[in-house]
């Protein structure tokens, strides 16, 4: 996929939860922008897939959504983290670190030998 990598399956949830945790309540467009900015455009986010993901997170009770007013004075749906979402984030972060650490170690061992 060119120079940019597709967002890994399953990591989108983690990215969204983390963004909301750091930035506070945000609308969908804002989340998309933020994810792309932070990853310095390395991660290619298919913006559309963000919305089913948000719905999924909401159904699981990890985020909540309310109508709010955007910076340019338009009605927008704002998403915020719930307390169980915060717990999820911690768990998912830990899990991600465990997995990526293990992969890192594997790769290190491979190049060293």
């Amino acid at each position, binding site marked *: 996929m060119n120079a940019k990598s597709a967002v890994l399956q399953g990591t989108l949830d983690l990215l969204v939860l983390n963004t909301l945790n750091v930035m506070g309540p945000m609308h*969908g*467009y804002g989340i998309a922008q933020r994810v792309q900015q932070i990853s310095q455009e390395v991660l290619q986010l298919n*913006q*559309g897939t963000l*919305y089913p993901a948000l719905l999924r997170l909401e159904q699981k009770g990890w985020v909540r959504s309310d109508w709010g007013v955007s910076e340019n004075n338009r009605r927008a749906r704002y998403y915020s983290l719930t307390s169980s979402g915060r717990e999820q984030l911690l768990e998912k972060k830990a899990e991600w670190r465990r997995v990526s650490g293990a992969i890192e170690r594997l790769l290190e061992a491979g190049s060293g030998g």
Partner: protein
Amino acid sequence: MPVFLTRVWGLLRRRALDRRLDEELRFHLDMEAEMNRVRGMTSEEAEYAARRAFRGVQQIKEIYREQRGLPAIEMLLKDLQYGFRTIWKSPALMATAVLSLTLGIGANTAIFSVIQAVMLRPLPVPSPGELVSVGDSSRPTALWEGGPMVSVFSYPLYQRLRDQNRVFTGLLASGRAGRIQARAEMAVLAQAALMDFAGSRLSRAEILDIRSKTVEVEPGGRGFSWIRKHDSRLLFTLMAIFALVLVIGCANVASVLLARAMKRQKEISMRLVLGASRRRLVRQLLTESMLLASLGGISGLLLAGWGSRMIARLASNRGVNPIPFDLDIQPNTAVLAFTAAVTILTAILMGLVPALRSTRIDLTSALKENSGAMGHAGGRAGKALVIGQLALSLILLVGAGLFIRSLTNLQTLDIGYSRANLALLKVDLLGSGYAESQHFAITRRLIQRLLSVPGVTGVTVSENGLFSGTDSNTDSLVVDGFTPAQREDSSSSFDQVGPHSFRVVGAPIIAGRDFDEHDDERAPAVAIINQTMARFYFGNSEPLGKYLANGGDHYTIVGVVKDTKQRDLKGKLERRFYVPLFQSKDRFGAFHFTIRTRAEASGVIPAIRREIESFDRNLASSTVEPVRALVDQSANGDRMIARLSAVSGVLALVLAASGLYGVISYSTSRRTPEIGLRMALGAGRSKVMWGVLGETLVLILAGFTIGLPGALLATRPIAGNLVGVTASDPLTLAVASLVMLLVAGLAGFVPALRAARIDPMVALRRE
């Protein structure tokens, strides 16, 4: 909240959620476009780029929707909505379809609820499993009370059993005070109870004899066992008939659905081309047929409530001794489950062929022109359906014909006496408060009083009467000079009758004499036997003067009477003997008076009733019926089956004919241009007409080819139920075939006529 519930919630609020998503997406795209403009794009470019970054707004919406709600249910709702709309669009056609399904499902449900109430459901009592009936009702030493044969016990024996046995927790007896035939009856009792009762008074040999007998106790908690024996064949025959009607109805609806699916062929092909899966389309078409079937099922259930009451009433009505027949035929879970199962089966049966046919299309040719490959395939399927319908309705017609002929034979059957101008009066003396010692005196006075009624020419009395629903049997008859080879040889039915009984009834005495006033308790005991008994026990030798013994009583045979029927019409003639009522030492509850009238009995019945009432007001509850009506009533089951099979035969024929009409009309209308061309080239109108008629005849002949062997096969199980006609009766087969040929031919004649009237110029212009 579990994810499932949020999805249900999403399903219910799908409109609001759709709006919310639209608004969110619009906001997103606008923001992105705005950003692009800031970056220096033209507004057109900006919007395009925004959409591209989004990758397919519609796709995302679809994914979002699927995740939001329950897609399966949402799809179902959509299909249902669509189904309702298509039904609404052709109300007359669909109403006919629903009506035929209503009749089919309703009739099947009705018969099932009766079968279930009679045979499958336990009696409505607490712990029915603990109920048993004592005695073997199939043994001939039994009393027939219209319902089950019951074994006879003496009253003291019953009392002792009830109070002293250690096996049963309670004992209930029904019926009249019976005669004492102790030895035979003891054998059928539970041994423990019996020894408890009689042990000290029996000889050693008798005790050993009793011990060697088996105890006959049958479960009593399940259903009405006598109806099970008596009517199960009838009920199952009805069920088979109704099942066939339902199948024919299904085929009809299937042709309608098929024809409609063919009209929608362009739409269906288009959707297939656009990527709709075939499964999805089949499911949608099946939803429609399920919808139709459900409408039929619901209204059928309503119809069944009425139908089952009617069937139960027809089955229970039995003359002067009506059986308390209080079936609980309220719809219950089992009936509902049955209806649901039939409905689903119906939907699949009628929906699957059209659904599969109409979605199996050669897409390119189907899209290119209207009358593509599919029209052909659909036409073939439609023809196959019609052939099946014709075959099945022929089977039903043959069945109806057989039942009707059998009923006619039954109604004119020789029962040994004339059923006209005879009435049967039942008087319950015991129940009206008369002491048993008075019974014979009262009976004699009643005979005199009845003889004084204008229009009455003869009166006699008997224990059992004619077609009254009661009868007596013995299996311990001892006959002068005859050695029984098996127990069956000692069995006979019998009655105890008054003076001049056979003259009043009208059964000729073949040899010897009738009973008269002198045959009373002071005179020697005598008996009259019927021809069948005379033949069986005495062959060519002289029966008069020989002896009979039954229980403790010995009789001299003084007469032979012509064979008669007095219990039912269908049973074969059985051995029977008669003894004078006024010589009897038995105790009776009720008596049956047979009254000969000058004119039709029904005209004299009010006068008879008045006479009884003026004799004693307490006897006002006595029942009196014309014997002809009683005889007719005994054929109620046959009458019901003849009527219902005739109705279903007609129904089936109409359905099949309309199916045939539809198929021929359809194929003619498709061939209109071709016919027009042929006519333009000189083909005559009659030739065209015969061509279309030929097409009809081919279908009808195919129906015969399957239907006639089918009828021969299908009527085999009912052969035993037919009177005076064989199951393969050629006349019935011929008439049924002719009727079908005429009606179906007529159905094909209309489109043939229409084809002959085609204007070649108009037809060709359409091309």
